[in-house]
């Protein structure tokens, strides 16, 4: 007689214990401290913060450690943690014009006001794997940088805009859409698209952006500006304390952001009958931390997804809002792809029955191949 297998709960406990053992690894080696990750693997930490949508380096580092370095798993941990955190206050929109810049370049002009500031970047190195890490200087604090917040750098796109060379869409009346509070519906407003792209999986954003450069979509882009550095977060006094009417802003801290503006081609169809005079169009990318690849991909995709409002035919997947935004979140993607590991035997059983049945029907039909029986 068949005896049912039991003990799912015990199996789970054993699995978790084994996971913890593998997480700790070799006990003779010291355990990695979160602070070490923040300091020496900051870019991985930055990515977890960006995609986890929570800017706490220590928590992001802890998530990476708990996830044994699995970045997407770490992102998930952070998102789950964040999901039910209380919202204390909404800041003013961040003004990247007041960024204390660590790095600032433009590919559009050889020289720009303030100069091409290279900053810490691997772009100018040869990728030779060092088998010994030489001692590197600690990342200097903002005050140790050459540029201080008091000297804003003229933005390349502003310069072009002042000459009428940049197409600027109308300002939107309503405030930014928050996709973590209101579900994304299509067609999505630009603020919702940008938010979705900012927390999108870097690999997916990269691949979709790459496609736009290879002919799937039409962008012909130039980097108008990339700037990375510290931006103050400002909050109005009346927003912190409802009993106060004072609207003046106070800075409550800084975060490191990477911002990218892409400039692309210059025809805009305003309506079916009206064409705007030629001007550059732009795409915008913004991500917390040192996420240059991400910010650039985001800018290319932002531009690509503006196809409809700029009167362009939608021909490529990168221009298709639903396709890009519905598949950009790696927490959703990872969950659904991996859910296939869950038991599906009831549905499989159903399919098995069905297939057997259909084969019976086909077999019964087989003797009279040329007749169409009913």
């Amino acid at each position, binding site marked *: 007689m068949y005896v049912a297998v039991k003990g799912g709960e015990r199996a789970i406990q054993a699995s978790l214990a084994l996971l913890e053992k593998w997480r700790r690894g070799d006990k003779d080696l010291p355990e990695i401290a979160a602070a070490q990750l923040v300091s020496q693997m900051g870019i991985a930490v930055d990515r977890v913060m960006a995609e986890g949508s929570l800017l706490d380096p220590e928590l992001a580092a802890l998530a990476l450690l708990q996830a044994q370095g699995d970045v997407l798993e770490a992102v998930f941990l952070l998102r789950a943690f964040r999901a039910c955190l209380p919202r204390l206050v909404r800041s003013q929109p961040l003004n990247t014009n007041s960024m204390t810049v660590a790095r600032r370049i433009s590919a559009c002009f050889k020289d720009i006001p303030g100069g091409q500031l290279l900053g810490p970047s691997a772009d100018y190195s040869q990728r030779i794997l060092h088998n010994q890490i030489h001692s590197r200087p600690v990342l200097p604090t903002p005050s140790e940088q050459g540029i201080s917040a008091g000297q804003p750098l003229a933005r390349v796109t502003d310069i072009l805009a002042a000459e009428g060379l940049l197409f600027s869409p109308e300002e939107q009346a309503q405030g930014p859409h928050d996709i973590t509070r209101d579900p994304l519906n299509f067609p999505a407003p630009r603020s919702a698209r940008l938010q979705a792209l900012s927390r999108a999986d870097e690999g997916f954003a990269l691949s979709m952006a790459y496609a736009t450069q290879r002919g799937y979509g039409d962008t012909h882009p130039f980097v108008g500006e990339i700037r990375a550095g510290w931006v103050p977060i400002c909050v109005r006094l009346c927003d912190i304390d409802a009993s106060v009417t004072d609207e003046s802003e106070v800075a409550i801290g800084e975060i490191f952001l990477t911002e990218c503006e892409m400039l692309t081609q210059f025809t805009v*169809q305003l309506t*079916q*009958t009206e*064409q705007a005079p030629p001007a550059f169009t732009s795409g915008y990318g913004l991500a917390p931390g040192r996420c240059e690849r991400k910010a650039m991909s985001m800018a290319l995709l932002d531009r690509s997804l503006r196809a409809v409002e700029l009167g362009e035919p939608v021909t490529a997947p990168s221009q298709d809002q639903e396709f890009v935004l519905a598949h950009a979140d790696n927490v959703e993607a990872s969950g659904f792809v991996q859910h296939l590991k869950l038991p599906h035997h009831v549905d499989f059983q159903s399919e098995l029955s069905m297939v057997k049945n259909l084969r019976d029907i086909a077999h019964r039909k087989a003797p009279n191949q040329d007749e*169409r029986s*009913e």
Partner: protein
Amino acid sequence: MSDTLLLEAHGVAKTFGRVRAVRNVSLRLCEGQSLAIVGESGSGKSTLLSMLAGQLKPDVGSIRYLSQEGWVHLEALEERHRRKLARTEWGFVRQHAQATLRPRVSAGGHVGERLMGQGARHYGQIRARAQEWMARVEMDPSRVDDLPSTFSGGMQQRLQLISNLITHPRLVLLDEPTTGLDVSVQARLLDLLRGLQADLGLAMILVTHDLGVARLLADQVMVMLSGEVVEQGLTDQVFDDPQHAYTQQLVASIL
């Protein structure tokens, strides 16, 4: 052919960017009547047809259609009503059947779709009706379960046609329905169309660059050039005695 007005367009125009595709076109079509719109590519005839089908809104002017429920204005039509009309009282046959036929839906599925959309729920009856219509246009009814890719171009076109006719539409619009097909296949299809039009009392608007097709199928003809109607009237009269220089040119270029 009755005198009941079915479709009327008044001062219709449409512009794309700087191109004025259709300028100031008016027409009247009665029940059971057929109208051919002839012209070269770029004349605006396809754009006009799209507007008459409610697929495109005119920039200026009005188009009204006498539905079962009374007059409706196409330029103000709600999507819900447009879809309903498009699937019951109207038919639209495109030049390339592949644009309409879905690769994984069988002949029977295509022909029966409108019925199923209206709530038909008897598989056997739907399939039988599909076979009836297939026979009517000389398609082999035993191929009712076959997929579109297994049919020739001419057969696919017939399939597209009967998929539209199964709900006995009052108005059928056709955009170059025989262009691209072999001459003999064209002839056969035109013959079938003519027979069906007479049998079913269809009102038809047909866009074509082929004057022979227009002569064969349409009582009335409208000649278009650069978005405007340069001449219109009874088909035979217009072609036998063209008044406008362009029409004369068109007629002269036929052997």
